[in-house]
Structures are given as structure tokens and as C-alpha cells.
């Protein structure tokens, strides 16, 4: 039952990522097309634009949420692939522990910098 719950979270995270990453991709990478329709706001990767987004809570919240969901989705997916080639229970337990620790470290690393930039 617990495994089924992890899998449901994996599916939910996929849907959330599709929405958040969709927003990120359109704003960051379709700037020329957005500019053509008069929606764009200049070069999205310029230092001014990047720092402007860093100072706005909504963008920081979006990035941290994206990081959390993407980390879970990626590590759970990678765990599934690795478990296909390693059959033992001991290996599964070791992979679970390593991935949970790695996920927490990367989440702290990835969210500390946006939060520190937001707080100035």
C-alpha cells in the first residue's frame, strides 16, 4: 500500500511538473515568439531579468516547488530503472537511503540560493 502511494505521488508530481515546467519553458525559451505577440518582456536570461525574478516571491516559490516535484519524480524514476537491474532487497534498501539523502541535499542546495537572493 505504501509503495502504491509513492507511485501515486510520482504521477501527481508528473502533472505538477508539466504545468510548472511548461510555464518556465514558455517564459524562458519562447521569448522570440512571445515578443512577436507583444507579450515578451525582453531577454529572459539577462542579468537584470534574472535578478528581477529572484526578488519576486512568486517566481522563487515556483522554482522551489518545481525543484521539489522534479527531484521526487526524477529520483523515483531513476530508482525504478536501477531496481530493474538489481534484484535484491538489500540493494533496494540501500538505493532508497542513498536517493532520499541525495534528494534532501540537492533540495537544500537548490532552494538555499533563491531564498538567500530573495531575502537580499
Amino acid at each position, binding site marked *: 500500500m505504501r509503495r502504491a502511494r509513492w507511485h501515486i505521488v510520482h504521477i501527481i508530481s*508528473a502533472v505538477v*511538473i*508539466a504545468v510548472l515546467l511548461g510555464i518556465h519553458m514558455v517564459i524562458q525559451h*519562447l521569448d522570440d*515568439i512571445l515578443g512577436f505577440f507583444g507579450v515578451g518582456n525582453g531577454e529572459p536570461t539577462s542579468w537584470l531579468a*534574472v535578478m528581477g525574478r529572484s526578488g519576486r516571491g512568486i517566481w522563487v516559490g515556483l522554482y522551489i516547488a518545481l525543484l521539489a516535484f522534479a527531484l521526487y519524480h526524477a529520483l523515483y524514476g*531513476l530508482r525504478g530503472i536501477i531496481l530493474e537491474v538489481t*534484484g535484491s532487497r538489500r540493494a533496494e534498501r540501500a538505493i532508497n537511503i542513498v536517493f532520499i539523502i541525495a534528494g534532501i541535499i540537492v533540495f537544500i*542546495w537548490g532552494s538555499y*540560493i533563491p531564498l538567500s537572493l530573495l531575502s537580499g
Partner: protein
Amino acid sequence: MAIREVQHRQNYLGVGGWVWGGNYKLERYLYLLHRITGLGIILFGFFHLIETTFFRMQGQTVWEATMALLEKPWFEAGLYLVAVAFTLHALNGLRLILQEFGLALGRPHRPIYPYGDALRKKRPWTMLLVAVIVVLALLFLFDFMLSGGG
């Protein structure tokens, strides 16, 4: 436990089975592409996190130098591939989610001779999915071309 593992692995083809295990159909290759794009996106995400944390913290000069490097045609082409991989992974994932909940599978029917097979089966939803992937890939390519490929 050893017997259980042996029984579990009787038909185990190993990593090679991901690519070829006999009479694979379109869905099986979509599964393989889903894996490849997933692993590629994880690799890209790791580098992207380094770029947006370490390089951003080092100030405007380092950030602008990084962006100038990433605007080289090779990197732009790589980013285009990542965008296509994301599109494919997301839309195929949506198909998998729908099918997991029993949707978009079609009605079950009795096998009547001459039997239909997966190769001759019409797949309107799969075709629509492929069309959406192609349109989005072209959209990203158009944007890539507008930015001069670098």
C-alpha cells in the same frame, strides 16, 4: 529467497531487453524513448542547477560569461534537443497516466478471424500525440531559428 529470485528472473533479458526483445511494437519503443529522454533530462537538470546556483551567486560578470557560452550554436542545439525531449517525455507520460487509469485504451472485443495485430491497428490517439509532439518540436525549432541559432 534464492528460488524466488530465480523464478522472478526466468525471462529476464537484462539491459539489452530494453532495446530489443523480439516482436516489439510502437508502444515498446515509446517506452524506451521515455527512459532515454528521462535520463537525459535528469542529466540536463543537474547541470542546469549548477548553472543557476553557483554561477548566479558569483555575480553579473560570471553570469554573463556563462550565458555567452550557452548561446553558442552547439549549446543552443543541445537546448533544443532538451526541449524536444521534455515535450516527448511529458506527452508520452500523459498517455501512460491515462492508460494506467484505464482511459484511451479502446473497448475490449472478442478476437475474430482474421485477427488484427498491433502493426495494422489504427491508433488515432497515438497519431494525435505524435502530431502534437511534432508541432511543439517545430515551434521550439522556429524559436531557435529566430534567435539565430546562437
